């Protein structure tokens, strides 16, 4: 006996248009279709962007050096890894300077970890809003991911600056560079929605996540090379771990002047989109009792 809202017309709430709209909520209705929910989510894109811009504003409101943190975080981690791993552990850096090699990894991983952590917290953090106004709740984690994308841009710029500083000049393969963030964003959507919903029910998520993020750092080829893994393991990494896919893309383009592995990248994207769709459906089901629980 669970309920379900079915927006019967395109809701005009986000657009603010004075057109009429009808909602029917029927506790007996069957799962009527993710497509309709997706359309509603899309109609709330404006509100989603408002949430994202709020997160960005709030984040740097009281930080003295503001946006600099975005580039300092991956940079300092990279330097640390360069010193520790690069100097002492003698890990293969695929014949590139280890600093550059690790920075490719950190740039991608930093985004994914930031996106997943903030999206997991997003619904709980706005529980006061859940109790006072309706909007499709998935726009909260999506807004968190969008806010993380805004941080990704300057860190890619830094990566390119280092690239140039080490004497790696642009090649035609750089044209594929904008595709790498797409893999990352799809990955964040795929893996970020469910923690956000589960966090409402189990606050354990908050404690488990930092651990999973540490694990994820080592499950992603940030400080080591994918080439050190056997072929099937390597392929599985690229398909199921969007960070691995992105890091592989970055390194091929920036360090080896190669094109990304198209087939594997497409498989990774396909997997992420499928997973995103499944977790979205689960999210929409769990969403119904958010305001009772949050």
């Amino acid at each position, binding site marked *: *006996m*669970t*309920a*379900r*809202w079915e927006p019967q017309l395109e809701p*005009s*709430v*986000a*657009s*603010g*248009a*004075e057109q*009429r*709209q*009808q*909602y*029917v*909520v*029927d*506790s*007996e209705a069957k799962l009527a279709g993710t497509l309709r929910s997706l359309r509603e989510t899309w109609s709330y894109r*404006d*509100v989603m962007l*408002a*949430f994202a*811009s*709020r997160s960005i*504003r*709030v984040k740097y*409101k*009281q930080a003295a050096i503001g946006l600099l943190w975005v580039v300092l975080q991956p940079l300092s981690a990279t330097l640390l890894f360069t010193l520790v791993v690069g100097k002492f552990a003698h890990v293969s850096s695929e014949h590139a300077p280890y600093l550059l090699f690790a920075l490719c990894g950190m740039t991608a991983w930093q985004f994914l970890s930031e996106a997943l952590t903030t999206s997991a917290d997003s619904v709980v953090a*706005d529980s*006061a*809003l*859940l*109790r*006072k*106004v*309706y*909007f499709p709740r998935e726009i909260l984690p999506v807004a968190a991911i969008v806010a993380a994308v805004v941080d990704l841009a300057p860190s890619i710029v830094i990566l390119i600056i280092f690239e140039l500083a080490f004497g790696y000049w642009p090649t035609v393969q750089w044209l594929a560079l904008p595709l790498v963030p797409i893999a990352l964003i799809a990955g964040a959507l795929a893996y970020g929605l469910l923690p956000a919903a589960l966090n409402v*029910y*189990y*606050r*354990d998520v908050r404690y488990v996540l930092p651990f999973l993020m540490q694990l994820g750092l080592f499950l992603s080829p940030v400080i080591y090379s994918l080439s050190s893994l056997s072929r099937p393991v390597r392929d599985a990494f690229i398909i199921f771990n969007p960070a691995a896919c992105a890091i592989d893309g970055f390194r091929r383009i920036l360090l080896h002047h190669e094109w990304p592995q198209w087939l594997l990248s497409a498989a990774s994207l396909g997997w992420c989109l499928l997973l995103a769709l499944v977790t979205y459906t689960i999210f929409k089901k769990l969403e*119904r*009792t958010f*305001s*009772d*629980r949050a």
Partner: protein
Amino acid sequence: MTQPAVTFDHVSKHYRGTRAYRSLRDDITGLLRPAPAPVAVEAITDVSLEISPGESLGIMGLNGAGKTTLLKLMCRIAYPSAGRITINGRIGALIEVGTGMHPELSGRENVRLYGRIMGLSRNEIARRFDEIVEFAGVGDAIDRQIKQYSSGMQLRLGFSIAAHLEPDIFVVDEAISVGDAGFQERCVERMTQLSHEGRTLIFVSHDLDAIETLCERGVVLKSGRLAGDGPAHEIVGAYFDEVSFARPAAMERSEIGGGGFSLIQVGVVDHVGTAILEVPADQPTRIRLRYRADRRIPGTSFTIGLSAGAGRCFVLASMLGTGEMHDVESGEGVIDCVFDDLPLNPRTYEIWGSVRGAAGYGDIIDWQRMSSFKVVRSEPERKGAVMVAMRVPVRFPHHWEVPSR
């Protein structure tokens, strides 16, 4: 035929679970041994309701009767456990006003953000921005961070954003009790205006006066069920009586006081001394205090007040004022306070009282609510009668006249 704005079709809502949060541990251990069945809290049970466009509806009920849940279901904030809800039109809701604003952002940024969340477009916000700020009365503080606002300012700003939505259906939860008197007046004005513009108004309040003024129709919720539905003035009157009379049974102690002196019965009696609850208006009225004392207390002063609620008395009969005294003898005794005339409007009144001894300090029995009675008039109740009675209890003899030229 126009569609109803809001339709509830056998809607129920229960909250389940006894704990605030479940932890993963509980679910894992729950796998091993069956957990005790969660206690479902029925917030709303089988409510069917139809609200026409343009109608103004007041929802009454005691705390926990399910009023807020009903509103939350309407606004899609909560999902029903059973039944079907149909909404036609854009809903603007004033629920938990003032919460959810971000403390780190300025008032201006919050207005922009929450305006958009609540359904205003960027253009609409830009257009109404000054109006919103003026209505909230926050002035130059609009560029300060919300965390520097007083709680009243936060609430006013929150209400103001919501009040400037232009919804087809305006849902207000107890928001009127927010802010100072001037602000409350503006709120009522705004609601009246929206209602006159033909928008549907759904309003939850404990302020029965406001409901009778603002609403055409009233609904009473009682333990999650619909317990009354009709023209607001009738429903308000009936509900008011019920609430006033429900209290003595639940709260009234049989004996007031203790330690040597107690009042064992306070109330209105008729000419033969029988206790009565309904008192005809404009008649001599006798309030009887029956007491028990275990010793003689000379020079005792009794004070009786009549209150129309909220603890303030509009009539005070006190021996302290006149210098009269009464010597309480040991055992049971009776003293009556007689009003020659009781020109009161029909409604329920409270009897307050205190007893003070000549010796020592303070009262033997502190000033407190002691009993209640209801004034009835023989003439039929008409719309507005309850409102008048709620505002002013006393009815002075008067008539209306057109002076001849």
